């Protein structure tokens, strides 16, 4: 093992690591800001008696979760005071056929409910994101957004 020779610049290269927190600080701080629903907010739509706004959570392409499933994080903001008026809401790419296959259940902050949504390996231009609301009475309400402007 040779002693470290005096090449100052070489041993200061680890400063490059600090690029990571600098790059991500924006998204981190954004999450807790007034607009902390997500980095890209889509159109607000009517769904049953309520309204919902879809958002892409991070500027990042879909990732593989530990089980190997391609996944992407989304958030939904519902109208003021609406959250307790229904039982649950779900996100899915493609139209769900039943409530049991409605996709990922939303949870977390009431005005930025989140879900890890299963994502197709290759997104088709016709693919849409479906939001399903399950009422306390068991009734379903649905609305969809096109996924053309998503970070792929």
């Amino acid at each position, binding site marked *: *093992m*040779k*002693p*470290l*020779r*005096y090449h*100052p610049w*070489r*041993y*200061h*290269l*680890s400063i490059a*690591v*600090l690029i*990571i*927190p600098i790059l*991500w*600080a924006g*998204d*981190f*701080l954004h*999450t*807790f*800001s*007034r607009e*902390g*629903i997500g980095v890209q907010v889509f159109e607000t739509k009517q769904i049953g008696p309520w309204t919902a706004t879809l958002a892409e*959570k*991070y500027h*990042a392409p879909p*990732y593989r*979760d*530990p089980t190997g499933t391609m*996944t992407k*994080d989304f958030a939904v*903001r519902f109208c*003021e*005071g609406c959250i*307790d*008026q229904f*039982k*649950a*809401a779900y996100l899915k790419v493609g139209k769900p056929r039943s409530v*049991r296959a409605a996709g990922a*259940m*939303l*949870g*977390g*902050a*009431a*005005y*930025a*409910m989140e879900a*890890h949504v299963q994502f197709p390996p290759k997104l088709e231009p016709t693919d849409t994101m479906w939001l399903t609301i*399950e*009422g*306390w*009475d*068991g*009734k379903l309400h649905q609305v969809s957004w096109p996924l053309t402007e998503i970070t792929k």
Partner: protein
Amino acid sequence: METPTKPAKKGSRGQFWLALHGWCSLPIWIFLLFVCLTGTIATVASEIVWLYDPEVRASPQDVKPTVNFDTAIASIEKHYPHSKVQYIYIREPYLAWEAITSMPDAPRATVHINPYTGEVQGRTIWAGLQNFMTGLHGWLLMPFSTGYNLGWYMVTALSIPMIGSLITGLVVYKRFWRGFLKPQLRRDKGSRIFWGDLHRLAGIWSIWFITIMSVTGLWFLVQAVLNDNQIPTYSIDPIMAREASPIVKDGSRPPVITIEEAFQKAEAALPGLKPHYIVPPSNGFDYYYFYGTTGTPFFSDYSERVVLNPYTGEVMNAVAIKDIGGLEMIAQVVPTLHFGTFAGIYSKAVWFIFGSLLTLMVASGVVIWTKRAVKSTVSAFRPVPVAAE
């Protein structure tokens, strides 16, 4: 090396170990310094905020026991209409309760509740210094989706060179135990001698601390590897069955027990439970979660828990220390050792002091190396030895 301050002889074993000592941390010194520094600040981040922000303070000596959770929630809802509490942190007796609350104008605001009066003392719309420093130190602020992120792996991997630095450092510093009996910090022999003395002196007094930091850091790496490979280091709570969530004909919300009622039942299920992290249901299939401790020393403030059905009040899961298995037990002890939270402000203060020393060790190591390297480079070009600077 004859004495710690003389440079190692060429080709000697001492020189080999010194080189190895340098290789452990010099190539990554800025990253290491950054992690030590941010970790040190994270240890006392809540206390730093306490100093400048009266909204986060609570004075236990003022009065009486803490207020009923229903009172706290009611005062938040009155103050911030249409808001919904996502979770509540109860950190220290001298800190206000932190209710992370979703509001129409801020999805993740932190409401500061006086635990002894139930009053809303204010709200913060940003991550907060504690979260920010913990995130900066622990995972370089990268987002968590599922599993552990790259930042977490990068930071925890530093535990390996840190263990290496400790071992090689003790080998290089011959008879280091003499340093305890005859501490020396020479200020009159030039800056290299001073920094060298400081590095060794801080080093021997930090052996225990560096050991704790690197071993617990290594566990955080192991924990990530295990969990990301489907070997959980935590026990899993039951999920509400579809049928268990009531269907109401007219579409209105079914009655649920209040947070205080739920807490009373949790306390009955796990007597002596002091809650530190409370999560009310976030949708119609969710439970109440009360994470806390019954006071077993060195176990984290979140190591025990009770899970309750909000519709029936039924206890779905109650986990006491005696119920948790080997891996989970390690996972519940390591954080208190790493963060120094086991004796409140007193252990945090000790951790802060030794964290600062560790940061100084990285910095002084670099200073020594730079000065030594400059000297050897210069002397390689000059036949006469240069004077100590």
